[in-house]
């Protein structure tokens, strides 16, 4: 049985490699907000209030482009709706927590933290302090996101654009799913999602980000039925 501290440290270590994408992305996110003419306090407050990378950038771009508040809020909602799926997966492992703890830990759930902690949970179902992994992974991502957006707000986008560090984003997610390519059912689901995302890329409100997972999960349900 691992101690709370050990599990917490494992959570931190699990997301550490993802800083290659999170930190440059945070810097760009902060810098874009200032470039678009928003006040530094407002741009930074989003990192605390919304705490969701891509959705923060889209939100500011829409507002500065003259879109209505309703459209901006809807887009954030659509982009972040995938967290409903993360929550549904994680609830299995967080069931025993008190209601207050559930409310607090939910705030820390983001893509990479969900992915890495979920992997740990699947392999260590019987540990008592499982949620400390999510505190470690989510907490690390939260702190790094705050620091990097703040750095971008104060210093501007000091990461040279020629480096193309945006490309680190798909790479970190490749690192997350790559072990599943040995399973045919997962490959089918991944390709369905990937192709759907290209097909629906121009759908309004960036909704490809939730449309393609829904299509892929329907295909997953079909695959499960065929497997029986």
């Amino acid at each position, binding site marked *: 049985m691992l101690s709370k501290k050990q599990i917490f440290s494992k959570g931190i270590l699990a997301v550490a490699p993802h800083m290659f994408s999170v930190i440059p992305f945070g810097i760009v996110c902060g810098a874009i907000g200032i470039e678009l003419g928003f006040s530094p306090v407002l741009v930074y407050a989003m990192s605390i209030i919304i705490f969701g990378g891509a959705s923060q950038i889209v939100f500011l771009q829409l507002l500065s482009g003259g879109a209505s508040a309703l459209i901006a809020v809807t887009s954030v909602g659509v982009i972040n709706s995938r967290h409903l799926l993360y929550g549904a997966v994680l609830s299995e492992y967080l069931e025993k927590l008190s209601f207050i703890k559930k409310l607090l830990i939910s705030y820390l759930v983001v893509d990479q933290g969900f992915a890495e902690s979920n992997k740990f949970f699947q392999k260590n179902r019987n540990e008592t302090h499982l949620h400390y992994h999510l505190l470690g992974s989510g907490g690390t991502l939260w702190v790094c996101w705050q620091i990097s957006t703040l750095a971008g707000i104060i210093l501007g986008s000091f990461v040279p654009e020629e480096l193309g560090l945006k490309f680190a984003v798909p790479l*970190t997610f490749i690192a997350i799913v790559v072990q599943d390519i040995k399973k045919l059912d997962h490959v089918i*689901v991944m390709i369905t999602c990937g192709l759907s995302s290209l097909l629906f890329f121009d759908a309004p409100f960036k909704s490809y980000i939730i449309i393609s997972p829904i299509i892929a999960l329907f295909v997953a349900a079909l695959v499960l039925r065929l497997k029986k």
Partner: protein
Amino acid sequence: MTWFTIIIAGIITYFMRMTMVALVDRDLLGERVKAVLAYVPSAVFPAIIFPGIFINDYGTFIEMNDPKIFGAIVAILVGYFSRNVIATIISGLFSYWIIIFLL
């Protein structure tokens, strides 16, 4: 007004994170739904990966000889065999940089 909009967006985002963890009783999900949930990572992350590789900053498809495709293939191979997240990301970035800076 912008502040109000941000707070609403934040509340909505928080509810997306919290609802399934804290408000919905897990027993309400049927066995079939639970089985499908095992596919969530495979069903969600390619929607970030594919556009990140195949669609450029202007929202159009890249050419088939784009260095990102090469970088992604290297990352997949290194990731699959090394089982190491850092190696996957670094190998993808370096192979991408070698093409854009040296070739």
